[in-house]
């Protein structure tokens, strides 16, 4: 494509940077492996000039050039539109409606020529969300491409919170070449100023060597150096002919580049534009012109009188209504409408621009357009405003701006009520209730969901009502009230099926299927899979992903690895294919957790480290990943186990959800136990155990009950998981159950608590094989208490256990616990009643008990197994 000249300036002090760029280009050509190049620098440092100088000797058809623009709300995929305008073909077709995936793969198609392609994307600091996604999509595939990806951005504007920082952080792993374009040296400034009658020392001091500022000062032709770049630009403007100055003002109202057909409508004469180009204040770029720098455009725009500026914006808007391309660009229209203070036009174009942005996955831009529409749309009809607020609520929730989302939904609800649209109001309340649930405000969420149901139920069988039932099911599921969740899920599915509402049906099948599966019914599995299949058929990859993700994490939570692990893998593959980084990380963290529990510690460690390295690993994903990492470190005896466990606890506390708090509490209790002070985490375990108990969720209640038993000796309530078998005095049965589930670490720990020395030895071997040094140390100590003098094999008479009791004494105590008399015990064991009496008195002495009942109670609190 055509690239503008670099303004006829010689590039000073850039030879080494140019050589570096050409060297990288040669590497790509020779090795066939693509490179990512990041070009940063302050505004006016000459990033564009450098890249243009680099590409100018290369074959023009191997260069693709696109720029992000400084519209208040950037046009989604703006750089690709630039490229499509230049090359046409499949990329132009894809942009006309192939959706995000189609556009991304069409872009890959551009980068496969025999010669290396150079794809330049300029001014990434202004990029919209879809462009940033494209950049990370291409960046991750750099090595596979026969291309050089050159990205320029203002490094001083990209702070820690800037969305570009996130993307650049992610791309750090592909080893990008970083080029920082520095200011000129004093000698460089002096060289540029040669032939000008100007104090070069003063020029260097005022411009700090900024090349753009320097050339503006030199071109302004003043006797003195202007103090700011703005002064320099305006001095140049004042020296233009009146016709050229008028043209310059017109160009200033058009961000980025201004097409000639548009400028004609703004009254810019061809002669005037030529004058600007000759004077070097504008550069031609194909059939458009642009300022040499955005700084210059802003300086000029600032001095265009307000009334004239508004008039120019109005004319731009009129002309953009019938563009020669035939396709209206609503983002540009909305921009000019807002600047022309035309509220009606903003209200029309901004929501349309939001639709377009959303179709390309630019959620942040969609939100900004909706906000713009509402700011200017105070005179819009009530129902229109209500709908805009409602959409804004949804988009903000998708961006995880929860409290802002709540505000938008509340406003929408109020306006719908005012407009008398009860069904719409209730539907908004259902969505609001979902957001409140996510924000951890369960009580309010359920109340609102009640209100919505009260409104909707008398109004007939509607999709909104089905959604409300589904939302109620989701709340109960999140709170792990699984039976109730199933009841509401059934209602929602019946109604959605009756109405033929497939979207609602797919969503509710997934949500309620998970609840059913987690409460132990395999019918839930079939239901989730049906939901996923339906989502695929109606073209909703987001719901499909939700299905795999829920099946994977829900199945993992109840240790059904045969179902959970393949689902998580599917979720990861699907997320890579559909560019869903959040679900990708969530599923990776869960897969790491499953690997840990299945004894695949190396796999788990690798996956969890990779997950945590991503800057997008936040929220619930970070809780899961930190918990896994903390458990891995504490089980291996590696240093720093508490750093991730502290972070996980901090984040889990913010959610207040059992499903987040329980694994952290258990992990901390375990880590403390391995360090020899199990009681240290007791308050936390107690608190979360109470929550689990209230909700009656077995896996949480029993794992935490198990740790209470470990740290205090308090016998846990009987239950259904191996944790309670272990805590209730049947470690052997627990070990078998763990083996069936496929959890070797828990299995070994249970085996180590049995009274059979061979079993304990087996447990020790298993722990050593896992690399579980701290637990192995505890088991070795226990083996020693059995006594080295004790021969192995059937003669276990004098072996000791942690209570200091012999095996025979333990047998006696087991029968005492059953309420047997000494005579009955003697019969059962084939020994004299009198001998039984001796054993019983030894037991009482060793335990410090005054009665048989007290002995049994003390044995239970000290974790002495009572088996017969």
């Amino acid at each position, binding site marked *: 494509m055509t690239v503008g000249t670099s303004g006829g300036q010689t590039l000073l002090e850039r030879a080494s940077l140019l050589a570096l760029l050409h060297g990288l280009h040669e590497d790509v050509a020779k090795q066939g492996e693509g490179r990512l190049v990041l070009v940063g620098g302050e505004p006016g440092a000459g990033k564009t000039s450098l890249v243009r100088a680099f590409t100018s000797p290369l074959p023009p058809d191997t260069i693709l050039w696109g720029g992000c623009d400084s519209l208040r709300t950037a046009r989604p995929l703006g750089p690709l539109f630039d490229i499509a305008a230049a090359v046409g073909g499949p990329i132009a077709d894809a942009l006309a409606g192939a959706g995000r995936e189609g556009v991304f793969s069409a872009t890959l198609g551009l980068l496969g020529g025999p010669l290396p392609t150079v794809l330049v994307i300029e001014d990434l600091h202004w990029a919209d969300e879809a462009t940033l996604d494209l950049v990370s999509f291409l960046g991750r595939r750099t090595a596979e491409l026969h291309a050089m990806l050159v990205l320029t951005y203002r490094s001083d504007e990209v702070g820690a919170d800037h969305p570009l920082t996130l993307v650049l952080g992610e791309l750090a792993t592909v*080893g990008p070449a970083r080029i920082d374009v520095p200011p000129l040296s004093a000698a460089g400034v002096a060289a540029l100023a040669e032939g000008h009658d100007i104090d070069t020392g003063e020029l260097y001091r005022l411009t700090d060597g900024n090349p753009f500022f320097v050339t503006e000062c030199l071109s302004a032709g003043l006797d003195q150096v202007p103090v700011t770049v703005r002064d320099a630009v305006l001095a140049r403007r004042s020296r233009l002919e009146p016709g050229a100055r008028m043209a310059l003002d017109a160009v200033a109202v058009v961000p980025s580049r201004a097409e000639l057909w548009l400028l004609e409508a703004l009254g810019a004469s061809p002669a005037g534009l030529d004058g600007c180009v000759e004077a070097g204040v504008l550069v031609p770029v194909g059939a458009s012109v642009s300022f040499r720098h955005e700084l210059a455009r802003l300086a000029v725009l600032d001095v265009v009188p307000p009334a004239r500026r508004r008039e120019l914006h109005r004319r731009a808007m009129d002309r953009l209504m019938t563009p020669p391309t035939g396709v209206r660009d609503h983002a540009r229209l909305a921009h000019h409408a807002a600047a022309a203070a035309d509220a009606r036009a903003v209200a029309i174009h901004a929501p349309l621009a939001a639709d377009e942005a959303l179709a390309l996955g630019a959620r942040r831009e969609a939100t900004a357009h909706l906000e713009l529409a509402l700011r200017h749309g105070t005179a819009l009809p009530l129902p229109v405003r209500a709908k805009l607020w409602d959409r804004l609520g949804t988009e903000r929730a998708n961006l995880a701006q929860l409290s802002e989302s709540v505000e938008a939904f509340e406003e929408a609800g109020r306006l719908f009520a005012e407009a008398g649209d009860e069904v719409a109001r209730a539907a908004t309340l259902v969505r609001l209730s979902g957001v409140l649930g996510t924000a951890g405000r369960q009580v309010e969420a359920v109340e609102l969901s009640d209100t919505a149901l009260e409104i909707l139920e008398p109004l007939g069988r509607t999709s909104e009502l089905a959604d409300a039932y589904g939302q109620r099911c989701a709340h109960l599921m999140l709170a792990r009230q699984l039976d109730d969740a199933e009841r509401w899920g059934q209602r929602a599915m019946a109604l959605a099926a009756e109405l033929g509402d497939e979207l609602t049906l797919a969503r509710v099948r997934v949500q309620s299927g998970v609840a059913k599966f987690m409460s132990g019914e395999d019918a839930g599995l079939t239901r989730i899979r049906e939901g996923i299949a339906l989502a695929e058929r109606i073209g909703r990859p987001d719901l499909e992903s939700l299905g795999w993700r829920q099946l994977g994490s829900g199945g993992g939570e109840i240790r059904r690895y045969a179902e959970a692990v393949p689902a998580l893998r599917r979720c990861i593959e699907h997320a890579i294919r559909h560019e869903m980084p959040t679900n990708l990380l969530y599923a990776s963290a869960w897969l790491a957790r499953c690997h840990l529990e299945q004894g695949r510690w*190396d796999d788990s*460690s*690798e996956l*969890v*480290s990779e997950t945590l390295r991503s800057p997008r690993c936040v929220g619930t994903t970070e809780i899961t990943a930190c918990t896994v*990492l903390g458990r*891995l*470190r504490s089980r*291996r*005896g*590696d*240093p*720093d186990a508490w750093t991730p466990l502290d972070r996980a606890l901090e984040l889990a506390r913010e959610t207040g959800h059992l499903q987040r708090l329980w694994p952290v509490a258990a992990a901390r209790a375990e880590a403390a136990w391995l360090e020899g002070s199990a009681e240290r985490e007791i308050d936390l375990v107690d608190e979360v155990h109470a929550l689990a108990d209230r909700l009656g969720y077995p896996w949480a209640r029993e794992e935490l009950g198990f740790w209470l038993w470990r740290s205090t000796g308090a016998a846990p309530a009987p239950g259904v998981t191996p944790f309670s078998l272990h805590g209730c005095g049947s470690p052997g049965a627990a070990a078998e159950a763990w083996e069936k589930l496929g959890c070797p670490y828990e299995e070994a720990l249970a085996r180590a608590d049995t009274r059979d020395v061979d079993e304990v030895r087996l447990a020790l071997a298993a722990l050593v094989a896992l*690399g579980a*040094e701290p637990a192995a140390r505890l088991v070795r100590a226990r083996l020693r208490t059995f006594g080295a003098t004790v021969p192995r094999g059937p003669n276990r008479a004098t072996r000791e256990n942690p209570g200091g009791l012999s095996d025979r004494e333990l047998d006696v105590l087991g029968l005492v616990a059953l309420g047997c008399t000494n005579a009955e015990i003697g019969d059962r064991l084939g020994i004299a009643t009198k001998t039984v009496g001796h054993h019983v008195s030894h037991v009482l002495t060793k335990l410090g008990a005054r009665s048989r009942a007290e002995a049994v109670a003390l044995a239970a609190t000290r974790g002495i197994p009572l088996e017969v």
Partner: protein
Amino acid sequence: MPKYLIERELPGAGALGPGELAAIAAKSNEVLVGMGGRAQWVQSFVTDDRITCIYIADNPESIREHGRCGGFPVTAVHRVAEVIDPITADRQGALR
């Protein structure tokens, strides 16, 4: 980055010849290059049945990753809290 002391149980380590040790060191270097600076090798002490190493790394997982990729056993990883030597005794820093 923190410093770590790594214990590697390797029966017969003390009997390894110079060629074998060179091969082990080369393998280790190769793995470290692939890790892009997340782990750096300072030195190792070879004794009868064990090699004890000093590494600088971003976290214990990187130490284990290096062991896994190179096939070196990792028996235990300890974070080095402090390094002391005879000079530590003289807190004023003046040698006598």
